[in-house]
């Protein structure tokens, strides 16, 4: 089968690979890179479980071919935490019961991450809008919204203390 050479950065690590063009980015991440945190629900763009960050923007990994990510920098759920320390958004999901089965969580975290990198103090309406493309069959969404609101607060505190340390 014909393959194409690609190079990309995933969670800060450089990878090069030869991939068949038809391989979906979601399958490449899960199978070739052995990062199964990116979940696959529907494979047609509807559920949001496969949402990852590409160059800082949320994208559906099931609606891209791996060849298209050549040269890109990706962050999957495995790249959010530092060693054993959860990312503040993950911590907020844990505190606020923002997950039950966890199937939707990697995608929810990517959507929340993009929102909070553009808007440090979102309204509940803006939070709802940001996760509107991510389905959750367990939580009823309210705890996820609480989690993102709490995460925003945590990140504002961290940013304020970073700023005062640098001053």
């Amino acid at each position, binding site marked *: 089968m014909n393959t194409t050479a690609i190079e990309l950065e995933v969670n800060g690590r450089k990878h090069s690979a030869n991939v068949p*063009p*038809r391989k*979906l980015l979601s399958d490449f991440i899960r199978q070739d890179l052995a990062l199964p945190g990116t979940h696959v629900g529907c494979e*047609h763009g509807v559920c949001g479980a496969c949402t990852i960050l590409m160059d800082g923007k949320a994208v*559906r990994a099931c609606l891209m*071919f791996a*060849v*298209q990510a050549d040269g890109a920098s990706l962050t999957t759920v495995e790249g959010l935490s530092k060693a054993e320390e959860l990312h503040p958004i993950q911590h907020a999901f844990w505190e606020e019961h923002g997950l039950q089965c966890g199937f939707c969580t990697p995608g929810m975290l990517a959507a929340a991450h993009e929102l909070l990198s553009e808007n440090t103090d979102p309204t509940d309406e803006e939070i709802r*809008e940001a996760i509107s*493309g991510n389905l959750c069959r367990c939580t009823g969404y309210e705890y996820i919204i609480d989690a993102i609101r709490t995460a925003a607060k945590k990140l504002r505190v961290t940013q304020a203390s970073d700023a005062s340390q640098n001053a």
Partner: protein
Amino acid sequence: MKPAPFDYHRPEDLQSALSLLGTHTDASIIAGGQSLVPMMNYRLAQPEHLIDINRLSELDYIREDGDQITIGALARHDAIHASELIAEHMPLISHAYEWIAHKAVRNRGTLCGNLCHADPASEMPAIIQVLEATLILARNGSSREVPAKEFFVGTYDTVCEEDEMLVELRIPKPTAGTGWGFEEVSMRKGDFAWAAVVCLLRVENGRLDDVRVAVSGAAEIALRLPDLEVALAGQAPSSDIFENAATKAVDALAPVGSATVSADYKRDLVRALLPRVLSAATARAS
């Protein structure tokens, strides 16, 4: 499901993309992939060649060009949604984007790809028709201009030929004082429309002028409603007039029902939404 195999091409400039399109039969362009990849995953689409236009940065623009705005094939939904130029001259577009898909989909999807996909329940095909935009289709060695109302020919079908590419959308700026209205009902916000109704109009000396109305979701393609437009032109705006016109317009529609929404319900939606967009546009006109 997984997509069928294909040969992947990634041209770096428009000329190479057009010659690839001209050389290969059974080739598809991939822009944002937000409609094409789902079709490929279901194997409803199985192109032998995929021509990826994501490296054609020359087509990634939203520009002011005299009395029109031009939008290149690689302008993403999200960039158009956030564009100040669009917000200033075409608030109808900025507003409608609140209803179109979700952030992650808008980050990748392009307006031109959306138009070429020609889903009958998609909002932008109706919007570019009321804005009377022109689409520039290019093939290796030539190009042509197509008015928006002639672009859509059927469900998922446009006049864009196999070896052609939509390279640019040109939208004339509406004259100052033009009012606009947009209403949609869908299963969930961000889903395709059950019915969406859009309108542009002006009010001159208390009379309606240059009324343009289109609907999505109510036929095999997004449609202008010329009979309703003619009936309203020159009238003094009032809710009675809007409601009568809506009832008449709906009689002429033959929407197609689906498992989730019946044809009758779609007709009811259009009847309810038409007066609302007409009133909103009248209130915004000055």
